[in-house]
Structure formats: structure tokens, C-alpha cells
């Protein structure tokens, strides 16, 4: 879509009619019509009670209308790795998955550690189909030794800082990052992995890794870093810690402790970690290889509980596309990561709602108000009047089969190819314009 065309659409109006609105931030769970005008939410009212006129209508009968989904953790691979993904292909996949906003990770080539690259990512020429928010590197070139200029990066539009792909390992550097981030109210996103414990490891340490002869990552490698970071966040005034892709029961204990102490600690969980365990891995299928790895069944159970009880703020995909030749090789040498944008909602509905009986209200919160709180998204994550006109419309009952070959992502590295799932995105609206309909 050209910018001009989108602008013209944004200036038009759209009435979403006959749907069931779930807006957790506004505590709405009822049949409601929604009128979008000039890129904003103009009116929300009971069925047939909208007063304003609309140029276009979207029939949402039998569908759930929700605030546009926000993904806090996506690898769009730009700059530098366009053979894996581009901003247009990655955001097309996001749109198909119902995400209207994605946060892109800085572990690119080069690393996004400067104002110039943040600005480059935000230019309209990048061709994004949904809102892209940049997360900047926390340390220069993500080498873990010298912090980047948080203030300048935030000024340029960075929404958080991280060295994702690697941890911020040094105690002193992490402490300094939390102090600086606290002063600026900038979240520090930690990839919690004590890499001194995980050298040459390619999956979770357990019976399965022993059987396969693969060196395993001990759950303690994650939990120990989360424990340290939470303790630091409890000591440092205003510090904001966000734990990326949390995967272990022990790490959850630390997060709970931090929350009890009123520290500003938040965390996200990926769909694959709440869906699969290390036992599910097909022997040496690198589409099951990611970091953090698929964990033990007891870890998955703990994640399910934490997703239900509010300990976890957000479902984030950690969408990590890789070309086939980077995956189809010796398991230990294959790249870490799987794609996830197009299967996230369906996995949440299938696993969390239908199997675990977590209410849809809570699931929508994990995709909207929850992530919006983590990184202070203003005007997003809710559809109260005046909000940005970012809307996700989905069918919570629709059964479908995911076909990776049809994915909009440039890469097809997913363990969910051929899975029968429930819950499908029907329309994705960004700034008032329809960017996906399915």
C-alpha cells in the first residue's frame, strides 16, 4: 500500500458493526460498535447506537473486536539480514497475526545502537504495514561493555533498550543500565541467560537432551540472571526491568518476588513456551531450536499459571525468522529461533482459552493492555475514545490449519506447520486502515 493511499484511508471513517468488544483496559466485554475516524477511535457505543456517519462498514457479527495487538519482541532483521526477513515481509506477517504494533529488536547487522539507525528504522521508506517501534541496543554493538546513549536513543524514538540475543551479563553494567533507564523511565529488557553456563548448548538440559546427546541449558542459567536483575530493580529507585521470553518456573519466582516488593518488574512469555516442552521436540528438528529453549513440562505448567494469574504481562512472539539453509543443518550448528507472528493468537486461544480455560478477556489483555503497560504505549492497547484506530478483529471459534508455506514472513521456520488451531484473525486495522483481512 502506498503512503498516499493509506493516508487517504486514514482520513476516511470506518464503522465496525455487530461485533463483541473486548477492551480489558476499559473493562469492556460486551456487544459494541466502534467508529474509527481520522486515524482515531471516534465513538464506542452499544449496538446501533453510534451517532457519527461512516464511509465504510465492517461487519463484525459473531466476531471479537479488540484493541490492536502489540508484540513486544520481534526480529524484523533490518538492517542487514534481509535474506531472513524485511520490514515489509515481517510486518505483513504481523498484520496477518493481528498485530498492529511490533517492537523490533536491535541485534541486526549492524547493531541498532545509534540515533541514526533508530531514525532509519522509523522512516516511511522502510515500508512497514503496521506500527514499528524500535528497541535500541543497551550496550555499544551489544558487546556488553559500554552503555549506549539512552537519552539520545529515547529522544530519537527508542521505546526500550536491550542486548537481546545476548544477556547484559556484567553486574556493574546491568546496574548502571537500570539506574539510567530508571531516570528516563526507559525499560531495560533482559535476555536472561548466564552464557557462562550455556556454552555449546542447543536445548534445555534434561532427560531429552541427555538422550539426544545434546548439551543442555540448565534452567538455572535463566533463573540466576532474573534473580540478580530483580534484586537490582528492587534496590534502584524507578528502575524498570522487563524480562524477555521468560521460560522457567524459577525465574517466575523472582519476578513474583519483585512485584510483591513493588519493583517495576514485568515479563513476557512466548506462545511456543506455553505450548511445547522439550519432550515435544522431534529428534533433531531445528524448527524446535530456539533460545531460551523449550523447557520441562513443570516449567510450562508454571507459565500457564502465571499467564492466568497476571504475573505475566504480555504474550510476545520472539518472531525469529531464519533462511532454510541456516536451519537445515546439524542441530547444534543451526540458528536459534522460530517465526511466530501468524500463530500467536491461535495458540493462545487453543492452549490458554480452550484447554486451560483462561478467559478471553485475559488473553486479549496479554496482547493489548498488558504489553502497552510494559513499554508505556500511549493511546494504544485500548479502544477508548481518542485512542489510535488500531483494531484487531478475530473469530475465537474458527478452526483452521496453519500452512507455513503460505506464511507472509520471508522465512518458514516454525514447528507449527500443519497444526490444527482454533481462533483466527479476520481483520487488522492500523490507524484506521485495513491492512489485513482473512
Amino acid at each position, binding site marked *: 500500500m502506498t503512503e498516499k493511499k493509506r493516508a487517504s484511508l486514514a482520513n476516511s471513517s470506518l464503522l465496525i458493526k455487530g461485533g463483541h468488544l473486548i477492551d480489558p483496559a476499559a473493562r469492556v466485554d460486551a456487544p459494541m460498535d466502534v467508529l474509527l475516524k481520522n486515524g482515531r477511535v471516534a465513538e464506542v457505543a452499544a449496538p446501533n447506537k453510534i451517532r457519527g456517519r461512516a464511509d465504510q462498514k465492517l461487519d463484525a457479527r459473531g466476531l471479537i473486536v479488540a484493541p490492536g495487538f502489540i508484540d513486544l519482541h520481534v526480529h524484523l532483521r533490518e538492517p542487514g539480514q534481509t535474506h531472513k526477513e524485511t520490514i515489509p515481509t515481517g510486518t505483513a506477517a504481523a498484520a496477518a497475526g493481528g498485530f498492529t504494533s511490533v517492537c523490533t529488536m536491535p541485534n541486526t547487522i549492524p547493531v541498532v545502537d545509534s540515533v541514526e539507525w533508530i531514525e532509519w528504522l522509523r522512516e516511511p521508506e522502510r515500508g512497514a504495514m503496521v506500527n514499528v517501534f524500535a528497541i535500541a541496543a543497551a550496550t555499544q554493538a551489544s558487546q556488553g561493555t559500554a552503555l549506549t546513549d539512552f537519552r539520545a536513543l529515547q529522544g530519537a524514538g527508542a521505546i526500550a533498550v536491550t542486548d537481546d540475543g545476548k544477556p547484559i551479563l556484567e553486574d556493574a553494567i546491568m546496574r548502571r543500565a537500570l539506574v539510567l533507564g530508571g531516570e528516563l523511565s526507559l525499560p531495560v529488557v533482559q535476555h536472561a541467560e548466564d552464557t557462562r553456563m550455556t556454552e555449546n548448548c542447543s536445548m534445555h538440559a534434561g532427560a531429552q537432551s541427555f538422550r539426544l546427546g*545434546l*548439551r543442555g541449558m540448565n534452567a538455572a542459567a535463566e533463573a540466576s540472571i532474573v534473580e540478580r536483575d530483580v534484586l537490582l530493580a528492587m534496590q534502584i529507585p524507578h528502575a524498570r526491568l522487563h524480562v524477555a521470553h521468560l521460560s522457567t518456573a524459577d525465574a517466575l519466582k523472582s519476578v513474583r518476588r519483585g512485584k510483591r516488593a513493588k519493583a517495576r518488574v514485568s515479563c513476557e512469555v512466548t506462545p511456543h513456551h506455553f505450548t511445547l516442552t522439550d519432550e515435544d521436540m522431534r529428534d533433531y528438528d531445528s524448527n524446535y531450536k530456539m533460545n531460551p529453549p523449550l523447557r520441562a513440562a513443570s516449567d510450562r505448567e508454571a507459565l500457564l499459571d502465571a499467564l492466568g494469574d497476571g504475573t505475566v504481562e504480555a504474550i510476545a512472539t520472539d518472531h525469529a525468522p531464519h533462511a532454510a539453509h541456516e536451519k537445515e543443518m546439524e542441530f547444534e550448528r543451526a540458528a536459534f529461533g522460530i517465526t511466530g507472528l501468524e500463530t500467536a493468537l491461535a495458540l493462545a486461544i487453543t492452549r490458554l482459552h480452550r484447554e486451560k480455560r483462561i478467559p478471553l478477556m485475559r488473553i486479549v489483555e496479554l496482547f493489548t493492555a498488558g504489553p502497552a503497560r510494559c513499554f508505556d504505549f500511549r493511546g494504544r492497547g485500548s479502544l477508548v475514545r481518542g485512542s489510535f484506530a488500531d483494531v484487531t478483529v478475530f473469530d475465537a471459534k474458527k478452526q483452521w490449519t496453519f500452512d507455513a508455506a503460505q506464511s507472509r514472513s520471508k522465512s518458514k521456520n516454525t514447528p507449527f506447520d500443519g497444526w490444527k488451531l482454533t481462533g483466527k484473525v479476520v481483520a487488522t486495522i492500523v490507524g484506521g486502515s485495513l491492512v489485513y483481512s482473512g
Partner: protein
Amino acid sequence: MNPARGSLLGIEHLEAAEIVRLLQFARRMNPDKPRPLLKGKRVLLLFYESSTRTRSSFEIAAKSLGAHTVLIQAIGSSIEKGESLLDTGYTVRSVGADIIVIRHPNAGAPHVMAEHIDVPVINAGDGLHEHPSQALLDAYTILRNKKTFKGLQVAIVGDIFHSRVARSACHLLSKFGVKIILCGPPELVPDIAITLAPGIRGTRHMEDALRGTDVVMLLRVQKERLAGLRIDLPEYIARYQMNTARLKLAKKDAIVMHPGPIIRGLELTSEVADGPQARILEEVHNGVPTRMAILARAMGKMR
């Protein structure tokens, strides 16, 4: 794609009846009486890791069956230039390989190969995972000496964690109800090891492992795979080295096995290595008929 018929990727998923068939067929194989079961066939030996016994015995086994062999090693081939595992696989397939025998430092490499290439793939050792031909020749050796698996107790001593030989042996012996005892320090014999197959127990004490044991399988401490793990060698020797005195704790007619290469003075003394109970060279000898059976099976000629 499923692995081609006749592939041998590991012992774990092999049925007991198939193992029996392989071992019975191996008994009929004799390199001194060549049988042209694989006449004109091409066996590609793809070795990404060094090997003496496995490589030479696969080569002799193939030639004894009338096949041609081509050896490709990582050093001195396109692998050195960065060719991927699968591209090497496609290349040797195009050259006309009928069987690919692969030794690789990464667990699962033969599985990746077999999933993409429609030629029987034989795992000649993959990382820490499995070494199925070794397990089969060890089973062959045990049966030559003990006649039956029934009621046997086997102690496997040493570096289980880094040993593909141990993993394959555990799978195989477990399928026949053998009592398996794993013995070594926690770094080398983690508690999780006993979950590998039914009928395995672990111990830290040699006395416990050896009492009532029919077969002692020793393993080399694999210094090249320790990856930062520090093992106190004098302590290891003091607690786990197999010497004449310790061997007396086992059954009188117990045999001592070792997949080699042996390090004299470390996991065993020269007295044990050269003693009357050692079957270490017999194992090497049995490698040839066993691998003849494996290759014949790969081509559907095990009849």
C-alpha cells in the same frame, strides 16, 4: 522425508527382533570368505571426525562384500571449504553412492542427512548421541562369550555423559532385559542418565558396580569433549581405574570390554588391558562381520 530403508541411525528405535536378525546374520559373515552381496555397490565413507577402528572395519567389511569404497574426510575435501552437510550429501548422492556411512562430531548429523537424501545412511558415531555399530559388535562379543543376555549384569564405567558408545549400549542391552549399572563421578554420570532406558541404575562406587557383574565395559575419559569440565585425573584413577584387585570383585568369569582407544594408566591398567579377561581386541575383530551385516542390511541383502 523418512530415512531410506536399511538406514541405521541409532539403536534406540531399532526393534529387538531386528537386532537379533543382525547379530545372527553377522555370525555368518567372515571377511576371510568374501561374499559378493554388494558387488558393484559404492559405499561412501564420510568421516568428519578421526577414527581408526570404525573406519577401517567398515572399509574392510564393504570390500569383503564386493563393494567399492570411497573415503571422504573433512580435511582435504570441500567440507574444509565450507560446504554444508546437506550439500556434501547431495554431492555424494550424485556421484553415485549406494550407502553413506557417516561419522560426525554433531549429534543428529546422520538424521539430518537421512531426512534429505534417499540413500541408506549408517551412523558411524554422531557427537555424544549414538554409535550403533559399536553397540552391535559389543552385543556380538558378549553373546560369543556369554551365550545369552538372559540374567546378565553389565557395568559401564567412566565417562557416560560424553559417550555415544554408552548411550547405544544402554539402549541395546535394555531391550534384552540386561541389568545395567552406570558407574562414575557426577560430572560424567549425571543422575538423569538412568532415564535413558528401562533397567538402568547408577552408582558412584566401583565395588557396588562390580559385585555380581558379568561384563565390565570401560570408557575412555574424552578429554577433547570435556569443554571446560574439569576432571581431577588422579582422583578419577584412585576411584574408578580398573585394576586387577578391583576386577576380582566382579564374577570370576567376567569379561572386560572397551571400545577403544584405550589409555593405559588412566581408565585401566596394562595388567587388565592385556589380561585373560580382556576382550578389547576381540571387539575390534568382531567389528568386521558386524559391519558386514549392517551393510548387507542397508542393501536389503540380509537374507
